[in-house]
């Protein structure tokens, strides 16, 4: 497999060291990496998802509107950020590890090289607490 652009390598390393959930996608929106906090949110380990093709991954992560309709690929925050070449913020719903459909917000930043090529997007996610979430400290 060819080497990824150095900007993506550094972005992955940054994401790996952060406590907030981060997803890194390539220029076609394919998942390159998500960190451990994002694993909790997605309910999947990155290593499980790593080898899957784009459509399968997207279906697995299954982002949805509040009414349950699937979020179109072009509506995903990373895809919007790359298409518009500016940060994009999207609120949606996603099934977590516990099976609960949980509201999530994501802000994506396009990763553009010094030569002006869009290489991918760095997506930071926040899970909104739901009434089904355990109280802090609960076991």
């Amino acid at each position: 497999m060819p080497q990824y652009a150095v900007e993506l390598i550094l972005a992955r390393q940054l994401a790996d060291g952060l406590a907030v959930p981060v997803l890194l996608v390539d220029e076609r929106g394919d998942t390159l990496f998500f960190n451990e906090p994002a694993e909790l949110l997605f309910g999947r380990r990155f290593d499980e998802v790593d080898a899957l093709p784009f459509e399968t991954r997207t279906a697995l992560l299954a982002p949805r509107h509040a009414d349950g309709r699937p979020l179109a690929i072009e509506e995903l925050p990373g895809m919007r950020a790359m298409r518009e070449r500016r940060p994009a913020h999207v609120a949606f719903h996603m099934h977590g590890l516990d099976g609960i459909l949980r509201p999530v917000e994501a802000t994506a930043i396009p990763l553009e090289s010094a030569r002006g090529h869009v290489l991918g997007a760095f997506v930071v996610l926040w899970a909104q607490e739901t009434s089904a979430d355990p109280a802090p400290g609960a076991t």
Partner: protein
Amino acid sequence: MKVAIWGSRGSIASAGPETVRYGGNTACVSVESDDAVCILDAGSGLRRAGLAFTADDRPIHLLLTHLHMDHIQGLGFFRPLFDPERVIHIWGPPSATQDLRTRLTRYLSPPLFPVRLRDFNARVELHDAPLTPWAIEGFGVSAATVIHPGSTLGYRIDGGRRSIAYLPDHEPALGGEIRRGDWTSGHDLAARANVLIHDGQYTTEEYGHRVGWGHSSVEHAAALADLAGAERLVLFHHEPDHSDDVVDQMLELARSTRRGDADAAREGMTIEL
């Protein structure tokens, strides 16, 4: 293909009795074929390279990895640039905001230097190094961005069936563990190269104090060389505070660490490929 080392030191020239064997001049390496001369970086070693190529009528291409002073300081002393009969091509890293001429002019203008870029008698052609491989007089040349502060390239030159990769300022370990080629900076440039000239500035202990400075420990250089399947690793960009004896020790470590050959660049060293 003939490779010659004109400067192997990093950061700042460091002449003195303790650096006589490996040399004190900063980064400069020439790669010659019958048809062309490529010169990798324009550190203080470029002055002597210029003397050697003054009477040479082959086209000269200067390939700059980045514009830190230890990689461009020799430009003002490169004799072929003062020859009105010559065309000199200078290739360098791209910038999102300024062209190569503007960036080089910061150094090549008063008060930092009395001679301006436009004062050179040779015709100077400046180019942003392209993303895709290109040809220089029979050489195949590739450039790729690598991990180092500021816009920095590594180069690979292929001639016939032989190849040299040149990554003088490079910190692949900043991108994570050096164990997967697709996630390791510099891997594709170095892949199966006959010679890999690579940053080996620090000991392991020094690297621990200088993470993020853009340079490698000997172990990291050896790890990348092994991962990429490079035949011969040549440690480069020697720390200016390291004496010849320290470089000897680092070379021994590289030889005991890696699976392939290892050497340390020294001024006057030539490699025939």
